[in-house]
C-alpha cells in the first residue's frame, strides 16, 4: 500500500520528498495505535489491580470509567511544567525526549502480521536490543538534570539495573537466533510454523522466563521498580517532573511494556500463528481469525501478567535484585546457550529439522 503511495507521490514531487512523506505516514500508522493502546493500558492496569484488591477502579468518567485515560491526558497536558531552580534546563527537557524516542523508534521493525511491518530488517532482533538499550539515558539524564538527591539515587539505580538485565536479555535473544537461524523477526515467527509444539516456547522455556523477567526489569515494573521506589526515594528519577514531561515518561514505560510483550510473543509464542495449527478440526474452524488477532491475544495475556505481577509482588531489595540478575539469570542463560547448541548438534525435536 505504501509502495504504491510513494510511486504516486514521486510522479509529481521530488523523490526524496515522496520518500519522506511516505515514511512519516508509515510512522504515524504505527505510532498512533500504539499510543492509543498505551492510553487504555493505563485504564486496564487500574481496573485489573482494582479488582484484584477488591476495589472498583476508575468508574466515574464515561461508561464504566472508559474515558478515564482521556481525562488523565487532558489533566497532564494542562498542568504547569515546573522547572526546579537549580536544575539543568536543557537536559531537564531532553530527558523525557530521550525516554520516549527509543520506545517509539523500536516499533519500526516489529511485524504485526505476515508482511505488515515498516522495515523488514535483516538484523531485527539486534535493532530492538540496540534501540531499547538507549532507553536508559532518559532515566539517567532525568535523575542528573533534576539536581535532587532522590532523583539522582533513582538514576544511579536505574543505570546499574538496566545494564545488568540487558546482558541476560541479550543472551536469551542469542538462544532464539541460534534456534531460528535468523535475526529477522518475520523469519523467526515463520520458523515456528506447525502447531503449538513447534513454538520456541518448549525448547527455550527457561529463556522465556528469563526474557520476561529481564523485560520487567528493563521497563522498571514491579517487582523491579526500585528506580521509582516511592517508599524510599519518593518517585525516583521523575520526582521533579510535572505535567506532560512526567506524562511522557509514563508513555515511554507503557510503550516499552507493550514492546516486551510483542517481542516475547513473537520469539517464544509463535507470533501471529494460530495455536490450533495442525489440529484437524480446530484448525479449519478458526481459519477465519486474522493473524493480528492471534498476536493481540498473546500480547494482551502477557500485558495482563505485567499487571498481575504488580498487584502480587512486593518490591525487591536492591542487592537481591542485582543477585537475581548476575548470579541466577546470566549463568542460566549461558548454560542454555550450550544446551541449545547441543540440541542443534543432535537435531533434537521438530525445531532443528
Amino acid at each position: 500500500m505504501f509502495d504504491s503511495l510513494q510511486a504516486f507521490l514521486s510522479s509529481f514531487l521530488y523523490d526524496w520528498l515522496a520518500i519522506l512523506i511516505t515514511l512519516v505516514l508509515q510512522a504515524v500508522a504505527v505510532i498512533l495505535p500504539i499510543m492509543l493502546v498505551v492510553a487504555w493500558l493505563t485504564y486496564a492496569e487500574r481496573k485489573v489491580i482494582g479488582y484484584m484488591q477488591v476495589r472498583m477502579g476508575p468508574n466515574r468518567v464515561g461508561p464504566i470509567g472508559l474515558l478515564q485515560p482521556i481525562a488523565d491526558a487532558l489533566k497532564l497536558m494542562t498542568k504547569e511544567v515546573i522547572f526546579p531552580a537549580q536544575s539543568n534546563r536543557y537536559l531537564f527537557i531532553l530527558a523525557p525526549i530521550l525516554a520516549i524516542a527509543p520506545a517509539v523508534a523500536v516499533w519500526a521493525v516489529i511485524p504485526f502480521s505476515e508482511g505488515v511491518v515498516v522495515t523488514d530488517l535483516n538484523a531485527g532482533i539486534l535493532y530492538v536490543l540496540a534501540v531499547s538499550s538507549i532507553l536508559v539515558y532518559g532515566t539517567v539524564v532525568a535523575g542528573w538534570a533534576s539536581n535532587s538527591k532522590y532523583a539522582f539515587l533513582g538514576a544511579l539505580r536505574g543505570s546499574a539495573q538496566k545494564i545488568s538485565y540487558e546482558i541476560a536479555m541479550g543472551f536469551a535473544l542469542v538462544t532464539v537466533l541460534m534456534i531460528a537461524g535468523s535475526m529477522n523477526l518475520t523469519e523467526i515467527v515463520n520458523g515456528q510454523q506447525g502447531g503449538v509444539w513447534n513454538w520456541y516456547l518448549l525448547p527455550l522455556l527457561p529463556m522465556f522466563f528469563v526474557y520476561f523477567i529481564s523485560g520487567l526489569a528493563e521497563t522498571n515494573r514491579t517487582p523491579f521498580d526500585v528506580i521509582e521506589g516511592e517508599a524510599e526515594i519518593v518517585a525516583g528519577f521523575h520526582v521533579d517532573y510535572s505535567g506532560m514531561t512526567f506524562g511522557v515518561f509514563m508513555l515511554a514505560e507503557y510503550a516499552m511494556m507493550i514492546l516486551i510483550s510483542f517481542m516475547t510473543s513473537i520469539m517464544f509464542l509463535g507470533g501471529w500463528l494460530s495455536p490450533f495449527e495442525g489440529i484437524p478440526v480446530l484448525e479449519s474452524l478458526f481459519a477465519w481469525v486474522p493473524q493480528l488477532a492471534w498476536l493481540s491475544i498473546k500480547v494482551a495475556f502477557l500485558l495482563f501478567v505485567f499487571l498481575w505481577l504488580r498487584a502480587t509482588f512486593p518490591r525487591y531489595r536492591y542487592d537481591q535484585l542485582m543477585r537475581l540478575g548476575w548470579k541466577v539469570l546470566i549463568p542460566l542463560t549461558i548454560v542454555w546457550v550450550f544446551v541449545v547448541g547441543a540440541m542443534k548438534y543432535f537435531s533434537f525435536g521438530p525445531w532443528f529439522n
Partner: protein
Amino acid sequence: MTFEQFIFYLLAAIAAVSGLMMITVKNPVKAALWLVLAFISTAGVWITAQAEFLGLVLILVYVGAVMVLFLFVVMMLDINMAVLKEGFTKYLPLGAMAALAIFALMYMVLGPEHFGLDVTGTPDVKAADFSNTEAIAVPLYTVHVYAFVLAAVLLLVGIVAAIALTLRRRPTTEVLYQNIDKQVKTLAADRFRMVKMDAVKEQPIVEAGEEDKK
C-alpha cells in the same frame, strides 16, 4: 542529491558537530552525552554503508553499555573547574605544539588525498537480502578464529584482574555481610512458630482492702 546522500550528509554533519562539542563543552556529563550523539550518528553512517551489524553493535555496546557506565562515574564527580584550569597559560605553548604535531600526523595518514571515490572506487551496492552479520561472522569464526578466541581470553583475564584487584573482604566485626542465598531460601517455618497455649480466663480482680472488711 538523492535521499541517501541527504541522509549521509545529515548524519555526517551531526557526527562532526557533536564530536566538536564533546571536546569543547565544559560540563563532563554534557560532554559524555555529545559523545553518545556522535556514536549514534556514526552508527547511522555505517548503516547507510550497508554495515548494519556493525552499526547496531556500536549502539548496543558503546551507547547502551560503555557510555552508561561512563555517565554513571562522571555524574558522581564533583569537579572544581578552577583547579583543573590552573596553569593553562603556562602549558599552552607546549600543548599547542603537541596538538599541531598530532594534527599533522593525522593529516598525513587521513588527509583528503587518501579518500574520495577516485581513490577507493565506487563501493559496490549489495542486494537487499545481503547479510552483513553473516559476512562478518564467517571469516571471524573460520579464518580469524584463533585471534578471536585469544581476544576473548584476554578480555576474560582483564575481568578477572579487575575483580581480583578490587575484591576485599573485611572482617565481620567491621562490616555486616548479608547472605542473600540464605535469606531467599528462608521458609515461613524458620521465622514463625505456632505455639499451643491453654485459653486463659480473665479473673475479676479482688482488692486486698475488701477482703479485710468481710
